[in-house]
């Protein structure tokens, strides 16, 4: 595998000119970005800038019409989420998608699914039959792996202090919103990710919860985890990021160090329009647009 070196950095995740069109609307227009190992890159932009569409393209939910996505030198454009997971790409979701009726522990255990030896795909049909038999008869190797996995999951949960540890057998839907987001991150860590893609990790959180989440992400960064972050809260982005990319109208309008971007007139204009230049207005929450059902006479 070749590792492209750009400016002396070891690039792990490399996105070249990806484009996605919906019926004439270009939601993402030739956006490029790269994330080096151990770096935290953030994507910001006003509502409707195409951040979520871009993230869907990078995480395999959607397929770009144009452009290339490389992970560790391998072309992974249009790979399904499960294949990306197998390569060590973990993600969280915007509003925190945990498995509501599964216990906290099971949620975290599921995060490790992609790297389980006893759940390896194997040959079509034969692999599935083998996996069923392994689950049924649980030979010692499988039991050892499951036990090791449990120990590891408990360790991950312990990172969150007393937030999750007393609740490992509770169903995830019974947790508070902030705790559900923590479960999501714990689940992502169980994948032993090579890159963690965070989609608005603090959406809907209050000040203290946001501060706690910031601490946690900083800790992950100190551990050397590569991060790609999509976020609305500029404070958080400025504190975490090594590199910031600003999207507006599907295009990249600026990028650079957090401080450079913060004072870029194009960014200020995109965020605030012409009227109140300079102010750091809080950004409105994302509006969920429902697709209308058809009923025309």
């Amino acid at each position, binding site marked *: 595998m070749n590792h492209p070196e750009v400016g002396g950095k070891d690039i792990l995740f490399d996105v070249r000119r990806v484009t996605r069109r919906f019926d004439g609307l270009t939601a993402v227009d030739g956006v490029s970005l790269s994330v080096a190992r151990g770096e935290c890159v953030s994507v910001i932009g006003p509502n409707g800038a195409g951040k979520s569409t871009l993230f869907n393209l990078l995480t395999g939910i959607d397929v770009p019409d144009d452009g290339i996505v490389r992970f560790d030198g391998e072309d992974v454009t249009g790979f*399904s989420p499960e294949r990306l997971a197998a390569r060590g790409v973990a993600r969280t979701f915007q509003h925190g998608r945990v498995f*509501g009726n599964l216990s906290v522990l099971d949620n975290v255990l599921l*995060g490790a699914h992609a790297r389980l030896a006893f759940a390896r795909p194997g040959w079509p049909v034969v692999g599935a039959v083998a996996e*069923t038999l392994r689950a*049924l008869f649980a030979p010692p190797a499988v039991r050892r792996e499951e036990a090791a996995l449990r120990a590891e999951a408990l360790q991950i949960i312990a990172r969150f202090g007393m937030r999750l540890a007393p609740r490992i057998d509770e169903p995830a839907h019974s947790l508070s919103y902030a705790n559900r987001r923590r479960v999501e991150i714990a689940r992502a860590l169980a994948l032993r990710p090579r890159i963690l893609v965070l989609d608005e990790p603090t959406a809907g959180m209050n000040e203290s919860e946001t501060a706690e989440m910031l601490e946690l992400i900083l800790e992950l960064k100190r551990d050397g985890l590569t991060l790609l972050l999509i976020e609305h809260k500029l404070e958080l982005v400025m504190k975490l990021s090594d590199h910031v990319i600003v999207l507006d109208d599907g295009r990249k309008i600026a990028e650079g160090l957090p401080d450079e971007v913060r004072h870029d007139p194009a960014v200020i204009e995109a965020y605030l329009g012409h009227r109140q230049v300079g102010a750091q207005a809080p950004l409105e929450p994302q509006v969920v647009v429902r697709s209308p059902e058809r009923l025309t006479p």
Partner: protein
Amino acid sequence: MTAWFDYTVNGLIVGNIYALLAVGLALIFGVSHLINFAHGSVYMVGGFIGWLCLTRLGLPLPVALLATVGGCALLGVLIERIGLRPLQGAARIAPLLATIGISFVLDQLAQIVFGPDPRPVPSTLPEWTFTIGGATLGSLDVLIAAIGIGAAGVLYVFLRFTRLGWAVRATAQDRDAAQQMGVNVNAVNQAVFAIACGLGGLSGLLVGMYYNSIDPAMGFEATLKGVVALLIGGLGNVPGAIAGSLLLGLVESYGVALFGTSYRDLFAFVLLLVFLVWRPNGLFSSNRRLPPEPLTGTFLSNRRAVRIPQPVLIVAIVAAFALPLLVSSPYLLQILTNGWIYGLLALSLTLVAGTVGQISLGHAALLLIGAYASALLSVDIGWSPAVTIPLAGLITALLGTLLVYPAFRLRGHYVSIATLGIGEIVGLVILNWDGLTRGPVGITGIAPLALFGWPLSSARAVYWFTLAVLVVLALLQVRLLRSHLGRTWRAIREDDVAARAYGVRPNRYKAMAFACGGLGAGIGGAIAAHLYSYINYQTFDSQVSILALTMVILGGLGSVAGAVVGAVALISLPEMFRFAAEYRMLIYGVVLLLLVRFRPQGLFGTA
């Protein structure tokens, strides 16, 4: 050539009748996101109201038509009140299950009142015909065409130009916004149900006149056809539903012309599957965009499952095994044995519908495949049941999984409709594949149960054998649920997008669940075949599928113990109280309705 013109005209007339059904379904889906499975029963009731007016009361045809529309509109209002309004906060599948319950109740009531036999519906129309281009049209054909076109016109004017019509369209677009703008959504729903059911009833009377026959069981078929037409047109799309109905009518008509009458339904359901797999959004929308996911969400409550302590379970199992030593009545043992067989079906469905969240409405087809596999292997090749029963299980696992494989990419209600269609297709293939399955005659003289030369002739021996199979398979299922497979299956049920992001391949795990479920259900069907000694394509029909779902919901979706308890409660209990056996379907319908309304988590809660 002229014959083809005839078939075309015939197809369009039948399509017109389907359209009256499908338009109603589309309107209801539009405002309430519900596929009204009671629609066919309303259609049946319409046929009987018209029959009453025409024969018993001797009313003229226009009055009979009006009475039918009025009566069915009232029924529609009632269905909305019972099946939809109280369930507004519940899971999306809840109202659908409620309408299935209502349809059971209506069908059974009609059967109690009018008897099960078909009745002729005299047409009071003048006897004239005319010919265009070789096709002969009768006065009834013209009437049906006129009513179809007339109804479409009135509906167009209503939706486009009346206040209530605007309210209907606004509700369909965005229910919450409409409510905030002062639209009384309940009134809109009620109006839509009234209109839809009025049209459905009209369709029932016209069909009765067209084929000169109505019977209380005609509704289910009509629901299925209406749903097929609805899907072809795109859910909730009214003009689409009309186009879909005409297309369905034509395809059926040409299919009958080419292959014969018994293939009519097969064409309808194959068309359904083709559309579900290739154009799930219907005729008129582009393929690339995924369905807007209108009906996802399993029927699961957030309440904790009841954990049965292990000693209680062991005592219950020991008691079940000890029962034949205490009770000498072979009758009681037989009905319990039947309960264990249905328990195998319920185990299979609770895995697929409860644990993996794929609400299958065609699960009885697995019993049918297992029964036929074992019966044919034993009758045609002469193998012992000890060999054919496990083989039948494997064949069912394989065939069942292959058959539903194309439906794995679907979600929510689409899965239910697809499995319903696949279930019907299995029955119809068995009916039509004379060379292998002996067609409508069925298979007779199937060897009785025997294990390696030891015949299980007494009721006791059969009871123990069936119970042992059930207990072993149930324990295996519990073991699977406790392994990593259990959490993976549940994760797919909870959120398949998130599961995929962590490396779970949903198709693989759905296939594993269907294969495990197919194995159990296939073994159950195989045992039943040897026990009954006679089977045909209707031994396990779609009613059994719905019954299985009722058992599973009664026990608690995903609960292994619940599935067995549900099966025994619904199969064996009505038999024990003889009087209840007659009203069996009525009881199932009412049980389903009450469960959905008052205890959606079932007896033991969802696991």
